[in-house]
């Protein structure tokens, strides 16, 4: 048996694909032509902001409270402007809940940090033979590549550790920035534009020589990434990272309180990240991930939530939702809130909650999806999904794809030729899109 015949895709084929995507990087004059109408166009552009709750948030204390159960804990539910109740420690969000919905019937299978992170980001369970792209990379590939006027990366991750673009290639990997928005090394310093041009001409000559020497795909991939880096360095869109250009009231609203010790000091990192996300989306970035950690609450869950996590979360979500709405962008920008899993309904001896994937909630809204709904439900103690249908990450991402106009029958091919359905073949959630 010839091991090499199993591949449906030759190396040449793959390189051809890479070359095609490289060609989509626009020429400068084309950009300036498009720029004229860009501001208005961008407002209508579809985007997704993923609020990633690193560590696994206790959705039972936030979105799906069980006040009558021994698992319910200390918090009480409150009514919202939507048709559902949420935690009393989310009052600002409650006031905008008519725009947001909660999928209360998530049932995922990975309760390990690394595996859960992979599964929720990619819709696929980890597999040693292939690395699946995070959904942000899929959006970069499907949507970002088509935005000719986008000069900064199409998938930007704020404050997080990143995820792999898998077989879609490094040009679709998340661009990592921290909440300060400072981009290291993007400024060529004393090297003026002409001189940079000269350097890039020389670089192009050396790189092309290596690519022609025919040693595999890595040479071309390197060149593609450099082209993206150069686009970014030269771009006016870099302004989007500078949240210091925002008014103090706006920053305060996102942070939930007057910023301590100047705008970049004190708390409110989550709020600042969301504000940056809004600016990026306005500039045409189709996928922004905002990392908000500190949810691995094996102990002392209620105190931590009440005093630290929830006030920041509440302010951030509410401010972002209102801000997008005011700017007429909420119908085009999908908001997704999730972590790698949630936490046990049962409260442990340390007044904490442990890892739990069986029955939990994901929040989703904007993008023209229906707001104010609770999709599915869990039983009285929160231990299992009691509605007829439970949901997987693929269903969430299929819903996002639907909202963003990415066809659900899109299929990508892994490098070994295996067809991979968008969002692992998940289906858009009818109640939200119907």
């Amino acid at each position, binding site marked *: 048996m010839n091991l090499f015949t199993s591949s449906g895709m030759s190396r040449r084929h793959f390189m051809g694909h890479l070359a095609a995507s490289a060609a989509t990087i626009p020429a400068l004059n084309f950009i300036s032509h498009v720029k004229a109408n860009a501001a208005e166009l961008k407002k209508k552009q579809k985007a997704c902001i993923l609020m990633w709750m690193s560590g696994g948030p206790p959705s039972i204390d936030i979105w799906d409270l069980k006040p009558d159960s021994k698992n319910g804990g200390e918090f009480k539910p409150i009514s919202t402007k939507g048709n559902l109740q949420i935690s009393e420690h989310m009052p600002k969000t409650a006031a905008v809940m008519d725009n947001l919905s909660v999928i209360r019937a998530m049932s995922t299978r990975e309760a*390990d940090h690394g595996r859960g992170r992979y599964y929720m980001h990619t819709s696929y369970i980890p597999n040693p033979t292939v690395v699946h792209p995070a959904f942000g990379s899929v959006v970069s590939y499907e949507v970002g590549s088509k935005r000719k006027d986008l000069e900064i990366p199409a998938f930007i991750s704020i404050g997080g550790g*990143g995820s792999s673009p898998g077989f879609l290639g490094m040009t679709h990997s998340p661009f990592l920035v921290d909440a300060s928005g400072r981009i290291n090394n993007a400024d060529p310093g004393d090297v003026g534009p002409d001189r940079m041009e000269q350097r890039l001409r020389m670089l192009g000559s050396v790189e092309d020589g290596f690519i022609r020497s025919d040693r595999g795909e890595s040479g071309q991939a390197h060149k593609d990434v450099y082209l993206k*880096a150069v686009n970014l360095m030269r771009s006016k869109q870099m302004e989007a990272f500078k949240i210091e250009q925002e008014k103090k009231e706006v920053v305060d609203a996102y942070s939930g309180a007057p910023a301590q010790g100047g705008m970049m000091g004190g708390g409110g990192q989550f709020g600042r990240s969301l504000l940056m996300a809004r600016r990026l989306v306005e500039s045409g970035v189709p996928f922004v991930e905002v990392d908000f950690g500190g949810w691995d609450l*094996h102990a002392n869950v209620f105190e931590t939530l009440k005093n630290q996590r929830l006030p920041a979360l509440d302010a951030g979500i509410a401010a972002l939702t209102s801000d997008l709405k005011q700017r007429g962008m909420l119908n085009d920008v999908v908001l997704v809130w999730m972590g790698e899993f949630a936490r046990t309904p049962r409260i442990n001896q340390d007044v904490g909650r442990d*890892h739990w994937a069986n029955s939990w909630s994901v929040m989703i809204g904007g993008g023209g999806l229906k707001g104010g709904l609770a999709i599915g439900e869990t039983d009285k103690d929160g231990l299992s999904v009691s509605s007829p249908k439970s949901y997987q990450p693929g269903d969430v991402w299929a819903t996002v794809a639907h909202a963003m106009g990415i066809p659900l029958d899109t299929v990508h091919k892994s490098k*070994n*030729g295996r067809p991979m359905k968008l969002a692992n073949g998940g289906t858009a959630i009818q109640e939200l899109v119907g």
Partner: protein
Amino acid sequence: MNLELRSPTELETLLEALCEDRLAPADAARLERMVLSSPEARWRYLTYMDLHGTLFWDAAGAGSPEPLSSHELPVHEWPSHENVVIHGSSIRDLPAVAAGVAAFRQPASRHAPRPHALTLTSISACVAIVALVAWNLSGPAKPSQVVVREGRPLPVADANEATGDAGTTGDAGTKGVLRTYGPPIVIADAVAVETDAPSVETDSLRTIAGGQLPTVIPVSSHEVVARIDSEIRSRWEELGLQPSVKADDAEWLRRISLDLLGRVPAVAEAESFFADSSADKRETLIERLLDDPEYVRNFTTKWTNLLLGRSSNPLVNRDAFRKFLRLSFAANRPWNRLVADLVSAEGNNSENGATNFLIAHLNNDAAPATAVASRLFLARQVHCNQCHNNPFDETKQIAFWELNSFFQQTTCVPRQRRDPGTGRVLQSFTELVTRDAGGPTYFETQTGLMRVAYPRFGGREIDPSPDTNRRHELARLMTDGEQPQLAAAFVNRMWEHFLGCGFTRDVNDLGPHQPASHPELLAVLSEQFIRSGYDIKQLIRWICQSEPYQLTSRFAESNQNDDPPLGELPAFSRMYVKSMTAEQTYDSLLTATKAHRVGAADWMQAEQNRQQWLQQFIVASNNDDNDETMAFDGSIGNALSLMNGPLIERALDTSAGSFLGEVIRQKSTEAEKIRSLCLATLSRPPSPTEFSTMRKLVRDGSSNRGAKGQPVEAYQDLFWALLNSNEFASIH
């Protein structure tokens, strides 16, 4: 036709598709035929379905009425034992499983990591130390007592049982718990005990791994290399492909310098290699590089990253660990002994650097230590077995906890050495301590049953009593004599280091479900490695002298599909291109540019600069698995750093001492200057076409000239382009 090799993968692929509900009808028919064809396939089908059914319903909790939490164990129904001593509040009735057996750990479950692990992720080193002290609450148990560790830090007021070690305190002691039940470890005075002798030569260790090495039967290097070549060739013939041609001197020299020394060759090294016309110059160079101190540094870097990770940890003394590895690699310490050193190390982590391996991974019930040791030394992925049986592997969940049980006597304690007169802190360190505790390790199955595991390795159980030093026993069982798994794991990893691809897709996994590209060759090399006395340098010689290592990375006419990144198993009919690691990039940049001479920093400063540069790419995950991301991965952020970062700015400096400045100022022609820049970066002269392009670009370039009219900026720009190129970033 090699069905044995293919079947498990295909079966797994189909089963996976079935479980993920994307099995096409044709695949279903194929799966059915396969399952019906052999008892082995039926067994795999059953175990796979059993596991995934269980995982889906049970791991996520749907099948059980209660969540899987260690705090909800069925132990309440068990009779309590009169000798039970509990330092805690909520687990009241943990049973003694056998009279006179001391249990010393709380039942573990992945769903219930300890609070200490959570605390450890805090950015504050101070908090981490408090947490670790808390975590070490249970000292050596008195025989016949069961001591249950308290998971939650107690308030200080509760800690009146603390022994208050004279002269020894945790530096955050006033804020949190400081309670040890161990004998006070008193460091009487401040006499420095720092010694240069490697701790690895202590008596206890000599008895562990020194005892029964297999008789060394000298097999000539030539014979082993010939065997590698014949195995590799026969696979080419099976696949009907012709290998690429031999790499020229420049390509090979660059490759071996990067693989052995971790950096590109310097210009002078390249020139002298090209000028050498002797037939055996490659062999001679391999010998010379193996004796080079940079070989030691390179492998120290590689193994420090593998064994400790790249993130910093306040309890770990990285420098001491590097020193331990340096001494070991410099002395070419046999691999099995080196592993024994790591597994059985004890004491002060600044004096015995080897202790830092376990200190880095003892958190979370030593689950990381178990998983990392198994992965790196044995190439077995057991982290999944922490929670469930592995369907593709004969290893079971209990095997994880049996291995874990060997680490359960071990704890680490932050200490300080004080001057007895002034009370001034002279040294802070971590001590790796073995407590004389015994008994089983508890774990929880998928169905919520509590089970016990006793220390057992490779089918051999050891005496679980407190008198046994379990890690000494583990070192013996894992490394003494003929250890095919230990050898194969190392051989596979080294093969990957040099050839760019291991025999299995993942060098961390040699489990039975992983098809190997050349199973015979792996077995032969492992056997020879054992017979050589686990001689690391000898293994390197064999690999570097073999035919596949001599080949070019260019494709040939008939091996177009030999490209593992596309998912194929490697045939090694060409060299696969590797990307430089962050460390190789940094060290190569310094070699090529002599940037470190600019500003004339001392060695310590140089090392600090290196660490600082590397740190920008490291992102630690904040959870209890000790995960981290190395973001030096060819992304846009990396490109920006190399295009505009301070390092490249120093590299382009033309002041005295810099390579570029010397090239520009030396009395040489334009052609010679361009050649020097190419040699320094790409380790080869430019081709005639490249040369004319470069010369044109230099002439057209900036008009800013040096004192003698040289186009300084133009050369800087060319050098910048070479250093940023895909070719520079590749090991090919």
